[in-house]
């Protein structure tokens, strides 16, 4: 167990993309720290398994692009457990979109899930009736928003857009002391990167970071910190958690 412990007793959070990778790790750690967590994702089996292990995690099988359902689920959670102390937008997909042969539909889907639905998520969760003043929100960006990787213009561009959007929302919500930040992981072993070896040389990729590949729990600590009151003066910024990526 880490020497740094967080206490989120009596606090409520919503996590999207909660059935795998970073989203799941964060949902678990929040639940372990005493929070009630509304876990939104598309994969039902994974969500039910989470709930069985952590009764504090309230699972909800929702596609974030189905705005009406997402709003209903969040409203109901707030009615039952109280206003949100924060939210984590970890829903997202990636896909290879090389300039010569990208699929327009796939590009649109990447933008829809990671960016447009993320803005909707912020609109719903940041309403006064749904969140407390001083709530903290974290969006997932990626180090590839700066480091350029061939074939990833849609993913990288979307993540860069998320960072700017998060800063904009930070400004719009500052009067209520609501904080909005992004975290940019480097290369982390998750579902999203597990097929990377099919198209890329994994050893070469590992060399892009001083510490090679990371795990989801190498990133989640920063997210929990940003959600906590220790980060109350940190807003509108991006924090790289990337094992020395690009150095």
């Amino acid at each position, binding site marked *: 167990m880490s020497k740094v412990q967080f206490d989120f007793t009596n606090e409520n959070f919503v996590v999207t993309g909660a059935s795998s990778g970073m989203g799941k790790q964060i949902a678990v750690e929040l639940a372990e720290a005493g929070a009630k967590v509304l876990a939104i994702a598309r994969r039902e089996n994974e969500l039910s398994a989470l709930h069985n292990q952590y009764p504090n995690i309230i699972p909800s099988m929702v596609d974030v692009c189905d705005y009406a359902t997402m709003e209903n689920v969040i409203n109901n959670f707030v009615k039952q457990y109280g206003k949100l102390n924060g939210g984590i937008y970890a829903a997202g997909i990636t896909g290879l979109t090389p300039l010569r042969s990208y699929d327009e539909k796939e590009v649109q889907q990447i933008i829809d899930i990671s960016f447009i639905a993320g803005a909707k998520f912020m609109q719903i969760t940041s*309403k*006064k*009736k749904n969140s407390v003043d001083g709530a903290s929100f974290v969006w997932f960006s990626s180090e590839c928003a700066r480091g350029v990787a061939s074939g990833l213009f849609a993913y990288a561009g979307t993540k860069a857009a998320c960072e700017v959007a998060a800063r904009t929302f930070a400004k*719009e919500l500052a*009067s209520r002391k609501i904080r909005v930040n992004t975290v940019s992981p480097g290369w982390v072993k998750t579902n999203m990167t597990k097929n990377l070896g099919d198209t890329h040389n994994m050893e070469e990729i590992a060399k892009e970071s001083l510490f090679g590949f990371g795990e989801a729990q190498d990133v989640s600590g920063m997210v929990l910190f940003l959600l906590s009151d220790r980060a109350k003066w940190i807003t509108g910024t991006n924090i790289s958690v990337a094992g020395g990526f690009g150095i």
Partner: protein
Amino acid sequence: MEQFLEKMQDVLDCEQEVKMNTALGSIEEWDSLAFVSFIAMAKAGFGKTVKPADVRNAKTVEDLYNLVK
């Protein structure tokens, strides 16, 4: 009209109930951000391009309604 009031509630994001005769000056949330949010809502929700000067001159919620109806 009900639809308008509902949208105004979102634009202002305030917990007090917004009524037609509510004075804008009495709503703490009627700030510069609510101002641009109203202009965007008029366009998205009612297809109206309202003039910022007209919005500035509005004294009540009803004055705003008259700009979009």
